[in-house]
């Protein structure tokens, strides 16, 4: 575990001084962490692809990939080799530059999120004092890449997918940020590491409603089922990446999983008390929680049908946004009433509030309708 925590001992010492006292010098720290993050993301994405395919195979009463390597663990490697040697097709009437750039623009932000994710106490590339704000800002850049792909392909299906993506991400950004503010209110800091340190009680218990909203909004943000409208296979074939092949397609595929990994890591950090945990080393706790969140994501994917675009928008504005505001309001009051640390009683209070609100909304908020007179 030492490799992830090269030489510095105290986080406070590390982040309080300006300019930061980079352990081992700026460039060593930077270089080591960039390599670690890249390797971590690639390895985890490979693992996730394998896990999801095997897992969904089980959900769908079949075996899943089991031919390449023991239990099929080398299937992602085989897939990677396959896409590498595939022909790279560029649409003749596409916008070449935009088409070329799109996969990169989509992939890089997903990777950049990991710069502020604490793998264990203080083990992160940059402990920005605006960490969570950085995550929110960077994670919404991916949609630019998706829109570029949809536009550059010069294909009607991809354009529809890209338009859906933009509408969806812009709408879900708002409840997403509002649900994070609840956590920030409790912590009093924006730094990811401070948020983890503040979680003597995991925030999923203190902020159950916030967790729910964040999880749903994040699923919409990374376009996972039931919000996978932009690549809706049964409607618009493959959506924004319908024209992509070879390695460019693989980059989009990687983006999808890297984003899922990023969201899992952020949920772990914000709501599941990050690397904290008894007995096991912190890094392992972090990994276990990330895998648990990811399993939840693909469980949802393999069971739930897709929403329609107007229903997706209605859900964001009429359901998630009011709930997020109410959650913010309640959290604000609680922070004022108990200025030090929230007592355990609040856990039950908040769970009860969440249950009441969710039941209320499911009673009075109805999706449906949608026919337009023409």
């Amino acid at each position, binding site marked *: 575990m030492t490799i992830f925590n090269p030489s510095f001992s105290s986080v406070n010492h590390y982040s309080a001084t300006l300019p930061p006292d980079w352990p081992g010098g700026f460039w060593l720290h930077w270089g080591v962490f960039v390599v670690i993050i890249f390797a971590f993301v690639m390895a985890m994405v490979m693992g996730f692809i394998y896990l999801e395919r095997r897992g969904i195979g089980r959900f769908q009463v079949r075996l899943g990939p089991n031919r390449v390597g023991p239990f099929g663990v080398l299937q992602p490697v085989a897939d990677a080799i396959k896409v590498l040697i595939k022909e790279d097709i560029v649409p003749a009437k596409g916008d070449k530059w935009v088409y070329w750039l799109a996969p990169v623009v989509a992939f890089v932000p997903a990777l950049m999120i990991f710069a502020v994710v604490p793998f264990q106490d203080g083990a992160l590339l940059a402990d920005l004092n605006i960490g969570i704000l950085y995550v929110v800002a960077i994670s919404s850049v991916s949609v630019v890449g998706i829109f570029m792909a949809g536009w550059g392909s010069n294909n009607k299906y991809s354009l529809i997918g890209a338009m859906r993506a933009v509408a969806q991400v812009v709408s879900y950004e708002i409840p997403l940020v509002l649900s994070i503010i609840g956590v920030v209110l409790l912590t009093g800091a924006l730094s990811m590491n401070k948020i983890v340190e503040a979680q003597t009680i995991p925030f999923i218990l203190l902020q159950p409603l916030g967790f729910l909203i964040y999880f749903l909004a994040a699923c919409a943000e990374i376009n996972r089922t039931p919000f996978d409208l932009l690549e809706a296979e049964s409607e618009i074939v493959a959506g924004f990446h319908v024209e992509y092949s070879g390695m460019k397609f693989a980059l989009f595929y990687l983006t999808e999983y890297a984003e899922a990994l990023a969201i899992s890591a952020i949920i772990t950090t914000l709501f599941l008390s990050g690397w904290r945990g008894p007995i096991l080393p912190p890094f392992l706790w972090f990994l276990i929680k990330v895998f648990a969140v990811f399993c939840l994501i693909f469980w949802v994917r393999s069971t739930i*049908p897709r929403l329609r675009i107007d229903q997706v928008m209605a859900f964001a504005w009429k359901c998630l946004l009011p709930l997020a505001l109410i959650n913010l309001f309640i959290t604000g009051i609680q922070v004022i009433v108990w200025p030090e640390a929230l007592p355990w009683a609040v856990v039950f209070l908040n769970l009860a509030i969440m249950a009441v609100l969710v039941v209320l909304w499911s009673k009075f908020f109805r999706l*449906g309708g949608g026919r337009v007179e*023409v």
Partner: protein
Amino acid sequence: MAIKTEPFVINIGPVHPSTHGVFRMRATLDGEVILDMEPVFGYLHRGIEKLAEGRTYTQNIPFTDRLDYLASMSNNLAYVMAVEKLAGISIPERAEYLRVIMAELQRIASHLIGVGAFLNDCGAFMTPFLYMFREREKILDLFEMVCGQRLTYNYMRIGGVSQDIPEEFLPALDKFVRQMPSFIDEYDQLLAENEILLARAKGVGILPKELAISISASGPVLRGSGVKWDIRKADPYSVYDRFQFDIPIGSTGDTYDRYWVRIQEMRQSVRIIKQAMEQLPPGEVLTEVPHSLHPPVGEVYGHIEAPRGELGFYLVSDNSIAPYRFHVRPPTLINLTALRDMMIGWKIADAVIIFGSIDICLAEVDR
């Protein structure tokens, strides 16, 4: 300032994951909303009706397998019944019961695919589809037992069925019939309690009762619109008048109702199979039919309630060994004529599930 927009035309199909074959919809869209839709079909036309005029009555049975390949047994049944009516052949009672059992099993298998594909169109990422396939597999195993085939059975013959059931068939069928209702219950629960599915399917793609009747729709599409019309009751053929079963009907005629009707019909089919198993008489399964059949000059229309609706065969005989005219009334082609009316004003995502709720088989539409 309003942004200037204009409608655009998009081709959904012929190569598209949700067209269930090679169907093509030329849709005019305003953003996501469908302004106009023009169905284009014929990509799978093989000229079966013309080919059939050059073959004997018996040789035509395998052709009917290839009409609606998801309901081959029903197609066999409709055709051989039309020929028997034309030639005035009566068949042994045991064969009638076996035909009913096979036709009802086929109805379950076909509805399983219909419902599974519909859920897949809703975006449920293959899971319901594969669960349906798991159950369908059991029916295919039963069919394999009786005729050795799993897709194109060619089991029915003019004058009965090709062979009697093996002795392990009835225990296997009994086991299936006992398991099936609990599986249908499981699915019904998913249907009734899944909020997203209800939001997607309820009220979408309504086919009014009057329109359904005026386009002569049939099968679950018609019954979903609330018309109690089932040829098994309205014009009983084979031995259907000896069984007790209900005709489930929908209320509003939306995609949800069509889906619901299919689920309920599976239950009724299980009921029929149970009764048929109890009443199954011993005896012959095939009567003596002349090797080269020369039906008397005349014409006949035989129809049955196939899983997708009224399947009819219109045969004209000129006393030769081949039919002079061989015409099929494919249920899904007729049901498809309402597609445009159901779709206009809905969004692309709805268009896909409305199309899926008709449950078509392109091989039958194009012939």
